[in-house]
């Protein structure tokens, strides 16, 4: 079971509250501290939805800019992190709808994505098998819808709980569970087909 990287219970809430209040008054240094604290997770959420590193970075920047503009609208009903992830997910989903495409890599895009995979020239058989699995998995993820891909990556990679995913994606918990089940089953089937093919 992946560790809950997003657990906020160990963080001093008073420190974050003070940073938010200072940022609301225009203190950009305070907002910079919040950016550094949550940048990795926000990028992860964006990456889970769009599954493209360059797009994820750009969308994550947009997320923080949007958050800065709307700091006054943040209420303490939810945690600041959840509020941020929700903005990131909405921006990423909107981006995908505008783009109107799945992550089907062709030509130069495909080459750049595969370049990021582990080096297959290693002599180690395990490394080769691992690289091969990664390629197959990346291909399988592309075949999922953005909604299913977002749910499974937010759960498996970012470690969000079902309630957090429900909050971020603005969908019921039951929907999160059903999408997760479908995504896992689908991936296993795709991987099996890719393995046999």
């Amino acid at each position: 079971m992946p560790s809950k990287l997003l657990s906020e219970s160990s963080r001093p809430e008073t420190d974050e509250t003070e940073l938010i209040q200072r940022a609301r008054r225009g203190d950009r240094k305070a907002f910079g501290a919040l950016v550094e604290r949550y940048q990795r997770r926000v990028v992860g959420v964006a990456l889970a939805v769009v599954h493209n590193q360059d797009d994820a970075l750009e969308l994550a920047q947009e997320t923080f800019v949007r958050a800065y503009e709307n700091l006054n609208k943040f209420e303490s009903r939810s945690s600041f992190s959840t509020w941020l992830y929700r903005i990131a997910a909405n921006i990423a989903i909107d981006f995908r709808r505008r783009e109107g495409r799945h992550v089907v890599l062709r030509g130069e895009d495909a080459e750049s994505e595969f370049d990021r995979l582990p080096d297959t020239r290693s002599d180690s058989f395990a490394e080769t098998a691992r690289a091969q699995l990664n390629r197959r998995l990346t291909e399988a993820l592309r075949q999922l819808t953005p909604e299913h891909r977002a749910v499974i990556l937010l759960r498996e990679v970012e470690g969000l709980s079902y309630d957090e995913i429900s909050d971020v994606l603005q969908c019921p918990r039951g929907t999160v569970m059903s999408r997760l089940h479908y995504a896992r089953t689908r991936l296993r089937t795709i991987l099996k087909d890719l393995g046999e093919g």
Partner: protein
Amino acid sequence: MALCDEIKLLLGPFDDGELEPHEMEDVALHVVGCDSCNSALDDLRQLGVALRDATVMPSLTGFAADVQTRIAKMRTPFGVRMRGYLSEFNQRLAAGIAIGAATAASAVVTLVVVSHFIPDLRHLPIASSNPISSSNPVAPSSLSQPEDLARSTQSEQPQQVARAVSMPSAATPASAVNSEDLTGGIDGGRTAARNDVRTVIKRLEADSPDVAVWDEPHDDTTVIWVPDQP
């Protein structure tokens, strides 16, 4: 295996720890005794490991700085600006009030301190010109009557030092007399002034035998010496 089909639906939430406690217990007990469900659970866990392995996080170097650059370029939201203005206004108002209070306190302290010394200023001695001087000739008309002078000398305190009064000699020509020493006309009143001086001297000698009068030819003056009074 209807039970396995139901259990396999719960394997995902079971692995994620999202089931109710009694459901977690039921699934765990079944998985221990079912190879098929145990194998399916193992596949789920390996899928999770592979997904984490395959997901490459991009480099975040300079990310925060880029965000700050974008924010710096944009216009600060109205609400944030207003909060900033109000905060700055409150700070300046507080500083102004503090300065004003300090100034007022300083003024009050100054007034209190100075007011203690103001009455004392009225008692300071005023520098007055003594008409009787050992070196300055005295205008005859400014001299008091011989009786008054005698009275004044007699009424002086014993500790007062004898004063010598120089006055122009009665025989001194008009030219030797300092015109500034004479009041109320110079040319026309010189003869009259000389007569007045002789009269005064005679009266002094008659009234006060101790008074000595002599002429100083070198400076053409007449000295009237009044001794100390007991």
